[in-house]
């Protein structure tokens, strides 16, 4: 039969887990606690520890200077990026993108056509000039 000390050691080891009431203590543990003052004292210490930890939840921290502005600035930049992405992926964005692409293509074609026709007219003009200079 285990002696009192080893039972206490086992119980104390288990107390760290069962103290938060999320895990249920065994009947043996409860029976031992009922008659062991030493383990009762340990249990009350664990309860105090949990109370102290829980009280930390009420605390808030003064933000270092400039942190709030940095956080809000980061959010603003993320918002801008999101707005641009939304614009590019939305239907309206696709229309605008298509119109811009069409305008670009047409202007490129016009530029190409314009330069080609001017080169042709240059070539047509050259023999006449050379002939007239030859006479």
């Amino acid at each position, binding site marked *: 039969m285990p002696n009192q000390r080893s039972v206490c050691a086992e119980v104390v080891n288990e107390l760290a887990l069962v103290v938060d009431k999320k895990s249920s203590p065994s009947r043996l543990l409860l029976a031992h606690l009922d008659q062991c003052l*030493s383990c009762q004292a340990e249990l009350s210490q664990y309860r105090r520890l949990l109370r102290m*930890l829980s009280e*930390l*939840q009420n605390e808030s*921290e003064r933000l270092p200077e400039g*942190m709030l502005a940095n*956080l809000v600035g*980061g959010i603003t930049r993320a918002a801008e990026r999101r707005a641009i992405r939304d614009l590019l992926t939305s239907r309206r964005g696709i229309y605008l993108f298509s119109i811009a692409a069409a305008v670009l293509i047409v202007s490129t074609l016009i530029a190409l056509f314009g330069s080609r026709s001017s080169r042709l007219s240059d070539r047509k003009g050259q023999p006449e000039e050379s002939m007239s200079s030859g006479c």
Partner: protein
Amino acid sequence: MSHRRLIRGDGLNRAVAAAQAGDDQAFAEIVEKTSPKVYALCLRLSGNEHDARDIMQDTYLRAYRAIGTFRSDSSFSTWIYRIAANCASTHLQKRQHRNERALEFDVETLGNVVTASPDSDPEIASESTEDRERLIAALARLPFSLRSVVVLGDVYDLSHEEIATELQISRAAVKVRLHRARKKLHEELFATETRVRVSTGSATLVALSHPKRRGAAQSKRDKSEEKSA
């Protein structure tokens, strides 16, 4: 009853609803309202201002991107704390991968917190302040793996499942770490009391072993003597 009593208020609920509808100004309001408490959590998890700043930035950016996924049937504070826990875990893992040493735990910064409900009795207040400082120092000495679990579970009341998800560990690991962390904290905070109790078996000496309690016990005796006089 759950003791999640953190970031509350109709104003916050309205801001959350507006931010979910795409109002960026409302999100800035959320940051303003919630950041002092989230910063306290980041400091508790990381232990220093430098890491806490980075974790805060990541937390709010992630929250901004994911605000649409928040369901109002759960607590907003728990939601943002979970994000902060995940960011802290990621941040400190990255630091480990880069083989950078963790920054020193800055107990002074951690002690510089504002208590929402200070005790009205100066004697009790000073005793609780001393207890709190010892607790903060003991938390600081825990490794991140134990500290994160006990802070999220016992301070911020996250469930084992929530902690497991955010720290990317199993539920069994959460239980084991919580057990170890509480035992270590218990050892650090109550070692003197336990030693005296075991060696003498006297309940009176338990109180006498703790200097503050000795003072409290003495003043109690004084008060009862005054009454009887």
